[in-house]
């Protein structure tokens, strides 16, 4: 009761007057040169460029043919239709005055993932399963033996790295080792998995490496 009374008195009392005071000057610790140059982050690859490159990685086919090949007839449901992906990829819609997307978003990243899986799985079927001559292989332009060490992996990975990211893998330190770990892990899991995959362990390993590169931020940004 006494406490409540004190609270009421405090609340109804005159406002406390606190005179403003100047802040004490900050103490100089060190001097450095200001960098006023314009900073710029990576740019999103225009969707037109992404689509054209995607068509090229599918063997230079027309969009309708890519759609047909990607969808396939195996019930894999790897690909829907181009119209389902265009807005997600960031294309503008001039009719609706929707501007081009300049940054990635969750739906766009999901679309990149789906398109990458379709591209890589069909490339494994086309290049590794069907085994055409090496000169005709668009993505996996190398032989894919079952037993492979890190050096052998590095040579083949460099082909994929150049195909997707546009520079030698050696210029990305640690990347060969990381991707070799991924490849080995996938191969190992497929060798021991009870459920059969439509890919051999080696094919599944290379497919996973391909997913990793086709979904890599460096593939979508520049």
């Amino acid at each position, binding site marked *: 009761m006494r406490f409540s009374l004190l609270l009421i008195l405090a609340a109804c009392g005159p406002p406390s007057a606190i005179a403003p005071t100047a802040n004490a000057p900050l103490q100089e610790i060190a001097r450095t040169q200001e960098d006023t140059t314009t900073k710029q982050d990576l740019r999103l*690859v225009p969707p037109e*460029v992404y689509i054209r490159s995607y068509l090229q990685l599918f063997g230079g086919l027309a969009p309708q043919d890519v759609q047909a090949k990607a969808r396939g007839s195996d019930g894999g449901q790897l690909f829907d239709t181009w*119209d389902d992906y265009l807005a997600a990829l960031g294309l503008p819609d001039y009719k609706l005055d929707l501007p081009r997307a300049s940054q990635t978003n969750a739906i766009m990243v999901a679309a990149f993932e789906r398109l990458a899986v379709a591209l890589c799985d069909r490339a494994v079927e086309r290049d590794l399963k069907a085994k055409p001559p090496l000169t005709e292989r668009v993505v996996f332009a190398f032989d894919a033996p079952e037993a492979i060490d890190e050096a052998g992996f590095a040579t083949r990975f460099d082909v994929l790295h150049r195909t997707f990211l546009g520079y030698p893998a050696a*210029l990305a330190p640690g990347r060969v080792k990381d991707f070799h770990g991924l490849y080995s892990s996938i191969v190992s899991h497929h060798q021991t998995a009870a459920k059969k995959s439509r890919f051999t362990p080696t094919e599944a390993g290379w497919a996973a490496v391909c997913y990793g590169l086709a979904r890599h931020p460096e593939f979508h940004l520049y």
Partner: protein
Amino acid sequence: MSRRVLLAPLLLLITSLAVGDTRQVRTLADYRDFRSLSIDLAGRFPTRDDLGTLERPDFDRNAWIDTHLGGPQYAARLTRIYMDLLRLEVSSAVQVTPPATTLRRIQLVGPDKKPIYVYYRRQQRRTREATDGEFCMTSAETGVELTPGQPPKGTAIEIKKEVLDANTVVVRPWWLYRDYVELTPAKRYGAEWTDFDPSYVPSDKLRKEADGSPTIEVRVCREEAQSRDTGSIYVTGRVPPPKGATPPAPRLRPLPLDDGYAKAHKGEPISCRDGLAVSMSVDCGCGIGLQHCMPGDSDGNDPGAFMLPAHSPVGLDASLPLTAQSVSVWYKYWWTQEVEHFLSHLFSDDRDFRELLTAKYTWVNGPLAQYYRSTAPAGCCGRERAFGLIEDKEPLFAQVSVPTSLFAHDAATWLTVADRGPQASGILSMPVFLAKYASRRARAAVVYNAFLCKSFASSDAELLPSTEPNLMIRPGCSSCHATLEPLAAYFSRVEESTSVYLPSAQFPLKNPNCKNQKNGKPAGFCDAFYDPAFTDGAAGTMRGAYASAENAEAGMLGIARAVTSSPDFASCAVSRVTASLIGRPLSSDDDALVRTLTDVFVHASYRMKPLVVAILRSDAYRNVNNRRNEVAP
């Protein structure tokens, strides 16, 4: 930068030497710069072969740029900048279905009890009183009631053969026959005619009968099938029915009456390409093989017609799967393609960029030729005839300029038109621009923003109630409209929504016929073209022209010349192209760069290639991703 990144090229060099590789060692920055160049000039990521070119000891960056500068992807890259800016596609809110050139069809039951389609035009005048201005057979004869804008009502009954023969004819139409102009067309789409343009695909419904069999001929109302170029004004002498009188049986709607113009010009010739011909003459039809009309697969307001890709992000030659689209979409699609072709040629041929707004030339294909030949003139003249304009006398695209060699089927054949006529002015007089930006102020504002890089920002003035019609001086409005209204005046002679050009002979800027009458108001027919707010006892003022009579007379070419001669025009173009290629908005830090590039652009006579070369060679482009110093895992 990490030590690992610095060591990587060294390791690469050692490895290359060890395996006897003759490739030139490049840095990560070299590869990234090359990838940027490939994306901007080749329109795709570099291939392994492209990287091989980069790694050759004799690789020359500048030579590579020069080689790729004239390619189609270079033109597409620059076209994208201005298409993103102007967004020149027209929304579904705009329908392009003039009654004079739109053939709709209904399904009826033929004398043999089989379903048949019959094509007709809305508002078609006929000598038969029962069907004048309506479908060519009555509801009593067909069992079907037709009301524009509503689905057909009733149950189709078997039409008597003599009724069908009296009111309809069969035609081998243009959309099915390549040789429709011949006396007996024989090259049918998909049958004898196999080398058709892949972009020209009539919808399945246009190619098949109701029972699923292929369409060999179409049945069309007799008047619509006429092929003369000139008809005569039809006058019936009918008197208006008493108020509340029911239409004479079997009609559902009142008989069309003669308007004042028809009475005054009875029997005079009228061009069958005129929009009024369908409702003012009984002897004008769709021409040989129905070539001046667009077929629709239903009686709807915007019926289905042809197959088109919903999008063509990588160009017409690699379009996405086709879907059936309406008559309006068909026109609007080609309108957009016209401006894309125009821009593409402007950039690939490295023409003076000012021609974007001033050029007399354009590019058209078959569908556009048909549009300019038949559908565009049909947009005129309804309200305009009160001023004596019964045909588009000074069209934005002169009829004589339309290439006669193009058939409507020639969707992939593009021909240049050197001079569209005196009113033509770059993209400003193209239908897609005028439909997208349908009002004078919208047109002026987009030109001001897109080509001078200026925008309208309202002041913080208090908005007080005002009766001042002059927005250039009205408080709160004047801060923007003092600039906007004189710019909008340039578009005064292009009618909003229809794009009909209003010639000075029929539409003087100050029209005494539209002066205020004794009741203080101008005559009713004036309102659409003359602004009552700027009308006095002497004359009415053409809408939009009050701000500047001089600009109104100068027309679209006037604004094009004014904008392209502004010192801001070149720097604006430079800023837009530079910002797009380096991928960020420019700031005041970039002023020096813009000044340098503007000098290059102006000294190169406003041609883009020297500007793009200067940008691609600049440090701003090479150091574009300066926040990235490490590669991701």
